[in-house]
């Protein structure tokens, strides 16, 4: 119809033209901003990789942690940053002072079993007893120092606290950040 633009014409006319001749829709200002963002993004991505290699996101040097009980009877090596669904090992080293009658009793808070997902304990405990707030494991202990390992596989992302204790002695508490 004369005097009435079609939709296609209106759209074409709204597209910026180069040299007032070719409807390209070029937006060089936006493009320059994007190029700047692109450069910054690549730097960020490189930093993410470096952080990952160092263990900021788990499974590396910065993720490793070690804590000892106040009386020095046992220490715990664990990863302060873990990844959901990824196996890791928490190792408890116990000294002579922690044993009683050639046995070691170790209390692990519920969080070690539930949220941090203890899959296996090495060596196998002689017995495990339900106690308020966690489980009490009993291991035979013939020599010291000895090691007990918990194979973990956390299921839920978040910050989780745990506690390990040798009854009658001091305890070790720690926090683990589980990433998705």
């Amino acid at each position: 119809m004369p005097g009435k633009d079609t939709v296609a014409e209106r759209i074409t006319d709204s597209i910026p033209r180069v040299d007032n001749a070719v409807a390209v829709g070029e937006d060089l200002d936006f493009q320059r901003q994007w190029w700047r963002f692109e450069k910054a993004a690549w730097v960020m991505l490189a930093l993410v990789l470096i952080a990952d290699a160092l263990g900021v996101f788990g499974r590396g040097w910065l993720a490793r942690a070690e804590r000892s009980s106040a009386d020095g009877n046992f220490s715990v090596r664990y990863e302060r940053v873990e990844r959901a669904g990824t196996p890791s090992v928490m190792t408890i080293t116990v000294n002579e002072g922690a044993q009683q009658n050639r046995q070691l009793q170790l209390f692990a808070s519920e969080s070690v079993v539930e949220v941090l997902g203890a899959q296996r304990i090495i060596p196998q405990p002689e017995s495990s007893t339900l106690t308020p707030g966690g489980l009490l494991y009993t291991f035979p202990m013939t020599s010291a120092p000895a090691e007990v390992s918990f194979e973990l596989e956390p299921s839920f992302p978040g910050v989780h606290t745990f506690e390990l204790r040798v009854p009658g002695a001091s305890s070790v508490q720690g926090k683990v950040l589980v990433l998705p």
Partner: protein
Amino acid sequence: MPTLIHAILGYFVLLLTIRLLSRRPGSQLTLFEFVLVFLIGGIIIASTMGNDRSVTNATCAVILVGLLHRVVSYARNRWPRLGQLIDGSPVVVYKKGVWQDEVMQQMKLAPEDILAAARTKGIRGLGDIDYAVLERNGQISILSRAESK
């Protein structure tokens, strides 16, 4: 539920990575880029599915990615600025005998790429080109001088 969250994260991480990799002149995937697409795809699949490799989980993930893609496509068309962010904007790389050096450099284009695109249109040399435009889909459009007249 974790699968759905991982699928959403995976979709946007993939979108950003592919966007950052810049447009490929000619818009055709080389063998080298096929490796990239399959490898990145495989990595995202592993994280999306996790330990649940059931058909139910896979079906839900596929439906979600499909829906997500539809929503993003709609939003891209609805808000041109978002479309520009996702696809970029066309850029003129050659204008009336002058190379647009900044664009050529940033888009990692070589004059040979423009000449190759020109040959596909039967144009013999630079002298016959009026404008060359790198489109949003990575294709290079050539406007010849003959067409302008």
